[in-house]
């Protein structure tokens, strides 16, 4: 059964220096509150995995938490660059990071393979792309039945997964609604998992085919209202698109970023 912990306890108990961490949420349900707690606890040398690093990893990379990033699309959606990611890759600030990049299809398949307990994922992908030349995790295999050449990538098996979800019941079962992304796969692929939720309720009111993660498949649950903001939680609050646009100006400059980080992350404790 999942343990109910404070966000501070969940992070300090389950995320260690040097861990491989996947914090997912496809534009929706991005676990920002947990990301900020990792920054406050100054956890270092993380290998961060996310399909879209988004602002959450831009902040964590700028705060010096990462040594490596595995991703498939590293921009600020509809706005432009992730300036902290670019500064780390282009100029090594605050530290240089290693990057390993995939396509979305390959990463989605790699998470699914991780959840399925397989060592690799197979897809019809990367045809004609230069990505296999710069990422040694991308290989090609021959289908033993048809001879077709297919791409193969290793499955993703994080030490820890962190996701946000709408709600948990008092036993720790979790409901995810809306753009479910790869939330289920990334939890099942990991050795340990932390799920932050908007609220804890008596009854999930889940439909029979709803996306529900049972309590016994989760390590820890922490209540974190508005824990996905400035991304969103369907049914609770909308995506703060104005903040995503403002982030471009905040993150472009190292000093503005550090001031923002001090005021909005370090000077605020966990909820």
């Amino acid at each position, binding site marked *: 059964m999942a343990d109910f912990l404070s966000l501070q306890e969940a992070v300090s108990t389950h995320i260690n220096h040097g861990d491989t961490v996947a914090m997912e949420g496809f534009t*929706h349900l991005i676990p920002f509150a947990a990301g900020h707690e990792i920054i406050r606890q100054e956890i270092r040398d993380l290998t961060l995995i996310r399909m879209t690093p988004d602002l959450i990893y831009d902040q964590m990379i700028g705060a010096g938490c990462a040594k490596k990033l595995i991703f498939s699309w590293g*921009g600020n959606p509809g706005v432009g660059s992730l300036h902290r990611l670019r500064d780390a*890759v282009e100029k090594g600030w605050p530290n240089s990071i290693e990057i390993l990049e995939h396509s979305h299809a390959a990463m989605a398949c790699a998470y699914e393979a991780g959840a399925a307990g397989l060592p690799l994922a197979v897809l019809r992908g990367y*045809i004609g792309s230069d990505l296999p030349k710069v990422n040694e995790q991308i290989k090609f295999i021959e289908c033993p039945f048809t001879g077709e050449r297919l791409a193969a990538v290793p499955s993703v098996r994080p030490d820890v997964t962190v996701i946000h979800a709408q709600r948990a019941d008092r036993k720790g079962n979790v409901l995810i609604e809306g753009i*479910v992304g790869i939330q289920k796969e990334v939890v099942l692929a990991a050795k340990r998992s932390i799920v932050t939720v908007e609220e804890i309720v008596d009854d999930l009111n889940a439909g029979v085919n709803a996306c529900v993660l049972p309590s016994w498949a989760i390590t820890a649950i922490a209540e974190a209202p508005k824990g996905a903001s400035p991304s969103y939680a369907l049914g609770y609050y909308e995506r703060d698109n104005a903040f995503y646009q403002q982030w471009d100006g905040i993150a472009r400059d190292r000093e503005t970023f550090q001031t923002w980080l001090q005021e909005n992350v370090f000077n605020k404790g966990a909820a």
Partner: protein
Amino acid sequence: MSLEYTASEMMSITAARALTNDMTCFVGIGLPSEAANLARLTHAPDITLIYESGTLQTRPDVLPLSIGDGELCESALTTVSVPEMFRYWLQGGHISVGFLGTAQIDRYANLNTTLIGDYRAPKVRLPGGGGAPEIATNAREVFITVKHSKRTFVKDVDFVTTVGFGRDGKAREQVPNIGRGPTVVITDLCILKPEPGTNELVVTALHPNVTREQVIEATGWEIRFAEALATTPEPTSNELEVLRDLKARTHAHHAGQ
């Protein structure tokens, strides 16, 4: 009497016209999304729009800023997981058109959204591949829309993130289970199509009041023009009105108004 419109409006409207009511379109964010929704709000009301966040058959009232805005999910027929999106719906062969933007495009319609310069020491780091590498090969055909400039239209892309026809124009030959690739590129100056046989992009239509010299000046290789060079029809007042309303609604929404 001819209407007043900008080159960007001309591009979006021309791109929208490339889509038809019976298509199932996998939509990239930005210009493709604007064009696809304009098509849905004008001549193609029943077009199926699909975004990589898993939203199937979506009908947003405002253009999404991100690929996964709540608007896309709430107005969709259904929302599936991301692995299901890429494996069943895209790789499974249900997408007729992939609609993409890009940072760089070359004469064989290869797309670069990874970086400018050398991979290990990039001059400019771009976002990366996202869904595009597999959209471009698993969709039955690909439409591309991008603003025309010498920085964008280069002879050879610095990095092939997403294949058009490869470095030699032949990358799709003898590859099983692969789509036709790019069939049209729509810019703010003209329409380009791959030339049968070589797959090199040639200009097939100029937008009204655009000259050959302007296109030559904005292209990084010796661009060729089709023998039967057409002129793109001007936007209609209805197309302009719908586009401007859509953009005004979108702007107000994302500014938090």
